[in-house]
């Protein structure tokens, strides 16, 4: 199957064109910055954490459709969750959840936000 039929299908394009988690948080508990040196994707990730719960999350990016869609889906999932639950989330769980059937080179695009969330949580834990 042509992978584009999956990635660029209408419901995902709607997410891409109407992102709800894009933008910086004014008073974040943790920020991370991630880059994909192979393709030039970049992202800043913001988390607001209270009482061990992720209250809010957002991102700013210069990135591709896959990266944006993955960010929207992941952040939708992490908001309201306990930090420890997200700490436990594995790469494979995240990719299965995403359900995008990505080619090897595009997995890296989707992983950018996952790694950004993990890094922000590590920074928060180290505070």
């Amino acid at each position, binding site marked *: 199957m*042509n*992978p*584009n*039929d999956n*990635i*660029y299908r209408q419901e995902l*394009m709607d997410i*891409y064109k109407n992102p709800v988690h894009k933008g910086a948080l004014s008073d974040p508990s943790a920020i991370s910055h991630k880059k994909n*040196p*192979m*393709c*030039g*994707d*970049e992202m800043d990730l913001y988390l607001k954490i209270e009482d061990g719960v992720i209250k809010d999350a957002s991102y700013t990016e*210069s*990135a*591709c*459709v*896959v990266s944006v869609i993955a960010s929207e889906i992941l952040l939708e999932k992490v908001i309201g969750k306990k930090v420890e639950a997200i700490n436990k989330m594995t790469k494979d769980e995240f990719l299965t959840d995403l359900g995008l059937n990505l080619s090897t080179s*595009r997995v890296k*695009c989707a992983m950018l936000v996952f790694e950004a969330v993990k890094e922000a949580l590590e920074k928060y834990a180290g505070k």
Partner: protein
Amino acid sequence: MKLNAEELKKDFPILKRKIYDHEIVYLDNAASSQKPQVVIDAIADYYSNHNANVHRGLHTLSEEATELYENARKTVADFIGAVPQEVIFTKGATESLNRVAINWALHNLGKDDIILTTDFEHHSNLIPWQEKARIVGAKLEFVEADEKGEVSAKQFKDKFEEFGTRIKLAAVTHASNVLGTILPVKEICKIAKEYGAKVSVDGAQAIPHLNVNVQSLGCDFYSFSGHKMLGPMGIGVLWIKRDLLEGLEPYEFGGGMIDEVSFDAATWAAAPEKFEAGTPNVEGALGLATAIEYLEKIGMDNIREHEIELNMVLLNELQKIKEVRILGPLDPTKRTGLVSFALDGLHAHDIAAVLSGLGIAVRSGHHCAMPYHVKKGFSATTRASYYLYNTQEDIEALIAGIKEAIKTFS
């Protein structure tokens, strides 16, 4: 004679492949070219009929393999206007450039000496110099591309006037892999000579497309890869000017590169063996020589003319799309067969993915020229690069694909 790209396409078995039911449109030649049947056959023939280690045995196969390998060296030498002794086989342009850095730069540069280069070099013609400069305390100085993506000999002259004989080496690309720009290498060499500086040229993007004669260029080192010029992967060339061969130390030590060995020390064979320790890539050298013969049959001037025509069509069509920003010169004669561009509001990855879905292969990213992309504010660009088998229809398919990508994402 005008070349017939449609006919030439038939020589390349991979171009018969379908990608998601689409005819393949291969426009990623600056990354690696496809191989004609004759090259594939030459490699198969070598292993089917002649394979043995070279320079080692007196038996028939070894002698045949040696002869084929040395004939390949001669073919390469003739192609670039050199003598065989000056042609050293490497695994590619990256290794060739690193060899210049290790074998020459490390021994000939000192504190505060300068390596002059440009701000749009491929990482393989930047990082080797950075690393060696760091070790010996030398510095890098950059000639910057102007707003058209071009550099002039005058800019190099200005640098030499400013820094004088502190510049010991000019390390420049012959043609940019990002901008497509062809550099005035001959003039640069002339200026460098006046100051006693050496010139190392990265020819990876030039030699597949242009007539290259190292003597008339006047450089000291010329590096290129086989796989971008219809040859196999894993073979490349470092051409070193004859005067420098003697004074250069070997790069690796081992079999095939010695004159005499005792338990305490060794002396070296003459070039090129001195620089080729170990069993060489005979199939690669043969494949490259066969590719060169194929290119010569078509004629480098005809290839150049064909690519200028494709440049004209692509540059013209791209300029009609308002979202497109083109990198490098708009004059089709000032570039090799490639055009990099950015689309406002669209990431290069997505353009490449949409195109891939249509069977069109392009490159997206920073094309191993990250500092230039960062400086110009591009996170990534899309690059279409063609060769002798690409037709005007391929360019039309690309333009249609770009328009479809814009429609998908807006």
